[in-house]
C-alpha cells in the first residue's frame, strides 16, 4: 500500500475480511435463532393468542356495535360530542369503502402494542427516574431504537421468529416504546420537589411516594408519551405489513408494487383517520385528568 493513499482514499477493510466478519456474525445469529427460535416463539404464544382473540372479537362483533362502543369510549374519555360524531362518520366511511376488516386488524394490533408498550415502558421509565446511572445506560439504547431505520431491526426479528404477527408486533413495540419510557422518566423527574419532600417528611415509604405522589403528578407527561407511542405504532403499521402483519398496511404495500394510486390513498386516509381519533381521544383524556394540577405555582 502506498504511503499517500490514505489521504485520498478512505482507509478500508479488505473485501474478504469484511465478508468474513459478516459471515461469522450472521452464522452466529442464525445458529442462535435456530437453537432458541422455537423457545422464544413459545414465550410469545400467549401474546399471539390474545392478539388473535381480540382481532376475532372485533370482527365477530356487528359493525354498528363496534362503532357505538368506540364512539362511547371516545365520549367517556373526552366528554366531547363532536369527537364521537367524528368517530361514527369516519368508521362508517372506512366500512363503506371496504376497509373494515383491515381497519379492525390494525386497531387490534395498535391496541395490543400500546398495551405492551405501557406495561413494559412505564416500569422502565420508573427505574430510569430512580437512578441517574440507569438513565445514562438506557438513554443511548432509546436513541438507537428511535433513529435506527425500522427496516434494519426487522431483519433480526424475522430471522428469529420468521414472518408473521408476532415479529410484527415486536417490531412495532420496539419502534413505538421509547416515548413512553422517556416521558415517564421525565415526568417523574419533574415532579415538584417540595411536594415530594412533604410526602417524605410525613414518613411516606418509597412505594407510597411512587404510587401516591410521583405517578399521579407525572401522569400528564406519561399520557403525552402514550399518545406519541400510539402515533408511532400507527405509522409503523405500514412497514410491519412487509413482514406479514395484516391490516391497513397490506393494501398500501400492494398499491406501491402495483401502482394503484386510489387504493393506496384510501387506505392511507383510513390510517390518518385512526391516528386522529386515537390522538384526540387520548389527549382529551389526559387533559381531563390533569385539570387540578394547574396553578400550583402561585404563592
Amino acid at each position, binding site marked *: 500500500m502506498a504511503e499517500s493513499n490514505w489521504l485520498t482514499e478512505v482507509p478500508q477493510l479488505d473485501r474478504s475480511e469484511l465478508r468474513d466478519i459478516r459471515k461469522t456474525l450472521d452464522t452466529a445469529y442464525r445458529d442462535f435463532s435456530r437453537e432458541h427460535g422455537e423457545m422464544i416463539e413459545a414465550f410469545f404464544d400467549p401474546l399471539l393468542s390474545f392478539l388473535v382473540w381480540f382481532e376475532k372479537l372485533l370482527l365477530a362483533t356487528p359493525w354498528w356495535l363496534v362503532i357505538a362502543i368506540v364512539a362511547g369510549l371516545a365520549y367517556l374519555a373526552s366528554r366531547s360530542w363532536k369527537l364521537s360524531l367524528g368517530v361514527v362518520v369516519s368508521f362508517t366511511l372506512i366500512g363503506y369503502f371496504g376497509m373494515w376488516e383491515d381497519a379492525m386488524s390494525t386497531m387490534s394490533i395498535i391496541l395490543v402494542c400500546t398495551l405492551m408498550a405501557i406495561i413494559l415502558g412505564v416500569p422502565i421509565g420508573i427505574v430510569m427516574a430512580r437512578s441517574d446511572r440507569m438513565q445514562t445506560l438506557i438513554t443511548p439504547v432509546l436513541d438507537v431504537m428511535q433513529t435506527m431505520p425500522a427496516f434494519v431491526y426487522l431483519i433480526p426479528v424475522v430471522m428469529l421468529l420468521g414472518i408473521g404477527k408476532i415479529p410484527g408486533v415486536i417490531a412495532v413495540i420496539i419502534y413505538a416504546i421509547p416515548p413512553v419510557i422517556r416521558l415517564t422518566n421525565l415526568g417523574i423527574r419533574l415532579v*415538584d420537589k*417540595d*411536594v415530594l*419532600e*412533604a*410526602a*417524605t*417528611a*410525613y*414518613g*411516606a*415509604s418509597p412505594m*407510597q411516594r411512587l404510587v*401516591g*405522589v410521583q405517578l*399521579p*403528578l407525572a401522569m400528564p407527561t406519561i399520557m403525552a408519551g402514550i399518545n406519541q407511542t400510539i402515533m408511532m405504532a400507527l405509522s409503523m403499521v405500514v412497514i410491519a405489513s412487509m413482514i406479514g402483519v395484516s391490516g391497513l398496511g397490506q393494501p398500501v404495500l400492494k398499491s406501491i408494487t402495483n401502482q394503484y394510486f386510489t387504493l393506496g390513498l384510501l387506505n392511507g386516509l383510513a390510517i390518518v383517520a385512526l391516528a386522529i381519533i386515537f390522538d384526540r381521544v387520548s389527549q382529551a383524556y389526559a387533559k381531563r385528568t390533569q385539570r*387540578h*394540577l*394547574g*396553578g*400550583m405555582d*402561585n*404563592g
Partner: protein
Amino acid sequence: MADPLIQVENLYKLFGNNPDKHMSLVHEGKSKDEILAATGHTLGLKNINLSINPGEIFVIMGLSGSGKSTLIRHFNRLIDPTEGVIKVEGTDVMQLNPKELEQFRRHKMSMVFQRFGLLPHKTVVENVAYGLRIQGVDKSESLSRARQWLETVGLAGYEEQYPAQLSGGQQQRVGLARALCTDAEILLMDEAFSALDPLIRSEMQDQLVQLQEKLHKTIIFITHDLDEALRLGDRIAILKDGEIVQQGEPEEILLHPATDYVEAFVHDVNRARALTVETVMKDPAYRITADTIADALSQMKGFGRDYGYLVNESGYQGVVKAERLEQAYQDNKDAKLDAALYEDVEPVDPHAVLETVIPNTLDADYPLPVVDEDGQLTGQLTRGTLAEVLGETHKPVEQQKDESRTPAA
C-alpha cells in the same frame, strides 16, 4: 430541668459534590463567601449547638439565606448533616435505618412547609388526612379527623376544593391543619405564617398559643419577623450565615443584643408590646416596714423620698406619702399607720405587657409598685424606666439595669 427533647451538637452542613473534602476549610474558620469562591460549596450550617426542651416554642430567626430551612430539615433528616449529632429523645437520628426513619417521621414530627408542599391532585381534606393515611389509619377515620382540623383553622366548607383553588394564605392553613392532624409530638414550622395577611396572621398566632396551652407540643418555629418571634417564642436562636449568633429568652435578646446583626434585628421591634414589666422594673428600694406614723416618717427620711411602699408580713399594703403622714402626725403623734392613710394605687402585675401599663405609669406622681400574685412587692416601675426602655438606644437600658441591681445587693 427535664432532659432536652432535641439536642444538636456541633452540626455542620456543607452543600456541594464533595463536602467531606472541603470540611477542613470550614474548620479553619473560612467564611461562607470564601468557601464558595474557593470550592463552589455552600456553607449551610456551621457549628450549631442547640437543645430544645419538651413543651417549649423554640424560634429560629435570621435573614434570608441564613440557613433556617436547612437547620429545620435536619431534625427529621430531610437533609443529612455533613458533621455532627442530632438526638431526639436521646436517639441519634443518624443511626435510624430507613424503616425506623419512616416510623420516626410518621409519629414523632410533623412539618409545615414554607412553600406549602400540598399535594395538588388531592382535595383539601385529603391533604389534611395525608399523614394519617400514610400511617395506615383507615380512610373514614382520617377524613373525619381532618375535617375537624380544617374547622379549627377556619377552612370549613373548603374540604372538597383542590389546593390550586385556594389563596396562598388558605393553602398555608391547610398545611398547618395537615401538620396538626397527625398529632405528632414535635411540630416543625418553616415560616408557617409568612403567607398570611396581618389580621389572620395574628389570629393564627393567638390560636397557636391557645393550642399550645392545651396540647403542650414542642414547636420549632421559623420566622423572619421578630415581633412574631417575641410573641410566640419561649426561646429564640438567631442565625447568620449558618451560625448561631445568639440564643436565649426573648427579653435577653431584646435588651442585650450580642452583635450588631442582632441589634439591627431588634431595632424596629415594638418594645412596648414585646416586653413585660418584670423584665424592666427596678428592685423596690423604698420599703416601709413600720407600725407607727413616726417610724414611717423616719424611714422615709432615711432614703430621702417623700413616698414609700408599705409592706408587712402579709405583703404589700399600699403607698404612703410624706405630706399625708405629716398631717396625721400633727393630729396624733402616737397614731398607728392604718388603711385610711394609704394612697389608692393600683399595683402593677409583673407579667403585664409594658404597653398596658403606660397610661397608669404616666399618671402617677411616683413609681408604680409591682406586686406579684402572692401579694409581695417585687419591684417598682418609673416613668424614667419606661422612657428609656421604649426609647431608641440600648445603652441606657443596660446601665440602668445595672444600677437598679446595686441597691438590692
